[in-house]
């Protein structure tokens, strides 16, 4: 289908962007790889699209001491190709190729994916596993939110109207850190049936609830016990809740074996 009518502005400065976002019917447009399909399917009908891709300071990947800062506008493809990410945030590097397809990764952004908070998306689970910090700005101030507190519900985040997610900080991996990303799909590039971002003793499932689901466990037994207690995945078109729970256990075991060997 075709999108409904809307106005379009591409601000050159943050101040201009925040001014435009005062309109309650304005919507932020980043890579457009989730927003434009929803417009095409007429699931959303904003009055104004504020294209943030011209804003300086929201892109780039930089190592800053013990953390690595990824601008909201960094695309999946840029993250996939980044040497710094491969070296310092290996979990993210493993996760990116699972996101959609090359043509979509060329435009989709990390900021857009985190702000959308699709429960089956890869980045939100990685952010929770790695205890990433989100940097959020509005017209007058800046605040920092931990990943665990950012994801509130199904497609619901801590972002308030008029706010922009400007960057995310991930800790630089240390020598003793072990992490692994695993995902099951029917076809490469599809959203996950179930997936797991594991970092040391933090196991975060995607596609398993309305937000990324964190399970902690410093032994396999503890993690498995926690899994059956806290995971209640909803069925999808092809898989029952019981199937997903079973698959989650399979991924947990695989991750545990990878991390401990």
């Amino acid at each position, binding site marked *: *289908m*075709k*999108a*409904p*009518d*809307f*106005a*379009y502005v*591409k601000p050159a400065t943050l101040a201009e962007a925040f001014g435009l976002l005062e309109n309650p019917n304005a919507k932020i447009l980043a890579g*457009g*790889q989730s927003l*434009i*399909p929803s*417009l*095409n*399917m007429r699931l959303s009908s904003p009055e104004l*699209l504020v*294209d943030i*891709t011209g804003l300086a300071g929201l892109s780039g990947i930089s190592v800053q001491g013990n953390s690595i800062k990824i601008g909201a506008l960094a695309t999946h*493809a840029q993250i996939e190709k980044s040497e710094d990410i491969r070296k310092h945030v290996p979990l993210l590097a493993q996760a990116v190729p699972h996101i*959609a*397809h*090359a*043509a*979509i990764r*060329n*435009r989709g952004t990390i900021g857009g994916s985190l702000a959308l908070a699709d429960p089956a998306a890869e980045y939100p689970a990685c952010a929770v596993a790695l205890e990433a910090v989100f940097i959020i700005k509005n017209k007058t101030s800046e605040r920092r939110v931990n990943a665990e507190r950012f994801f509130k519900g199904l497609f619901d985040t801590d972002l308030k109207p008029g706010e922009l997610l400007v960057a995310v900080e991930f800790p630089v991996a240390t020598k003793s850190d072990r992490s692994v990303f695993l995902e099951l799909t029917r*076809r*490469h*590039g599809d959203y996950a049936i179930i997936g797991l971002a594991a970092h040391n003793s933090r196991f975060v499932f995607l596609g398993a609830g309305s937000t990324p689901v964190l399970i902690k466990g410093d032994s396999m037994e503890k993690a498995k016990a926690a899994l059956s207690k806290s995971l209640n995945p909803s069925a999808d078109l092809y898989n029952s809740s019981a199937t997903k729970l079973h698959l989650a256990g399979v991924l947990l075991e695989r991750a545990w074996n990878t991390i401990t060997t």
Partner: protein
Amino acid sequence: MEHDYDITLTVNGTKVSRRVPARQHLVDFLREDLELTGSHAGCEHGVCGACTVRVNGEIVRGCLMLAVQANGCRVDTIEGLSDSKELSKLQTAFHEHNALQCGFCTPGMLMAAQDLVLKNKKISREEIRTQLSGNFCRCTGYQAIVDAIEEVINGKG
């Protein structure tokens, strides 16, 4: 009333200026305003890949980008890559392997395949399938498409 905007972009090497509605996607602009009907519109929500074009050298979904967003960009379509002969090896291989039947998916397939040709000196069938997972073909069963691309990248076995 529709919201219209002036855009200037370079399409297949030629500079064009037009006035477009904000809601028009790039693939409809190419097809309807510029009559470049080689890029196809299938699903219009990013899953089928029939609309694949190149923007500033990288492949994108023509249905998931607005024409206004292409302002100032370099856009290359199947017509441009075909005329410049950039695609001739792939086109010959597709022809020889019967890698198309109705042809609806073929322009998008070729754009995605050429991206692989440019980025790989050697490739496995598995990698070709992974990369083409974003391009649907309802006719061929993919085997012949993978054969054709494999031959162009790895040479005749």
